[in-house]
């Protein structure tokens, strides 16, 4: 940015949708991020899209932590013992 403040790029709705992941990932330069936020603030459909993407990410992450099955655990412990015996442990 120059001291005079170059105009930040102006983004179309299409740009906003293309750049939403860059924005959520924090992979945008500050001027573009500010322009992105201004657009989303003033444009209800783009704001809706942004919120939907955020909710999609949260919903994808909503997996309950599964525990290892007893069968898998005992199979693995057996392989460990074989390995350990094989190296003279």
């Amino acid at each position: 940015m120059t001291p005079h403040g170059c105009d930040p790029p102006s983004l179309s709705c299409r740009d906003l949708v293309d750049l939403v992941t860059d924005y959520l990932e924090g992979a945008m330069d500050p001027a573009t991020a500010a322009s992105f936020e201004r657009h989303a603030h003033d444009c209800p459909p783009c704001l809706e899209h942004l919120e939907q993407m955020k909710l999609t990410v949260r919903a994808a992450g909503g997996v309950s932590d599964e525990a290892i099955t007893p069968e898998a655990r005992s199979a693995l412990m057996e392989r460990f013992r074989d390995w350990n015996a094989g190296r003279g442990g």
Partner: protein
Amino acid sequence: MADEIDAEREERELVEALKAGDESAFATLVERYHPSLVRVARSYVGSEAIAEEVAQDTWVGALNGIDRFEGRSTVKTWLYRILTNRALTRRDRERRSVPFSALAAEEIDGDSAALDVERFLPADHPQWPLHWAVAPQTWAAGGEDRALAAEAREVIDRAIDALPPAQRTVITMRDIEGFSSEDVCNVLEITESNQRVLLHRARTRVRAALNEYMVDQ
């Protein structure tokens, strides 16, 4: 950050104990990582049973290679790299196995169809170039609960299963398993920008699938 460093130190200690043949160290690592290894393996091989085998082979590979683990990467990165190699070998058994980075590059070039293109007016539209042609349908109030319900989980899992393979693995690691982008790039040996392209396409498709469910009420 301090927590991360502590956690990493603890895992290195577990690996040192494992080198000395400590069974409880192995049990701890297995409890911590096995279910996640199976889910990531599943993103490559498509079947639950084969994913379980690949994850088990990963542990055997880790044990056999443990004396060569020198802590240049984190324990987590090391384990998931072994998994990635095994899963790709398993998947490409008949063909020559390619590294993930090649798979990713191929997919980024080959799957170049612009997403969501029908949702926008053309660039030469006299009044509203590149504006929404059809505004997104709102996800009603209470959408949060609906999106987090068990039914939505099925919609999301089906959408992820239908993704091209590199997208499927990246979204599984990032959004389901909660890896940082740095960890994903280290494990898969892809650039940040390729990782982001794959994640963007994957999330875009999953959102579209979720949208049909969210507005269908």
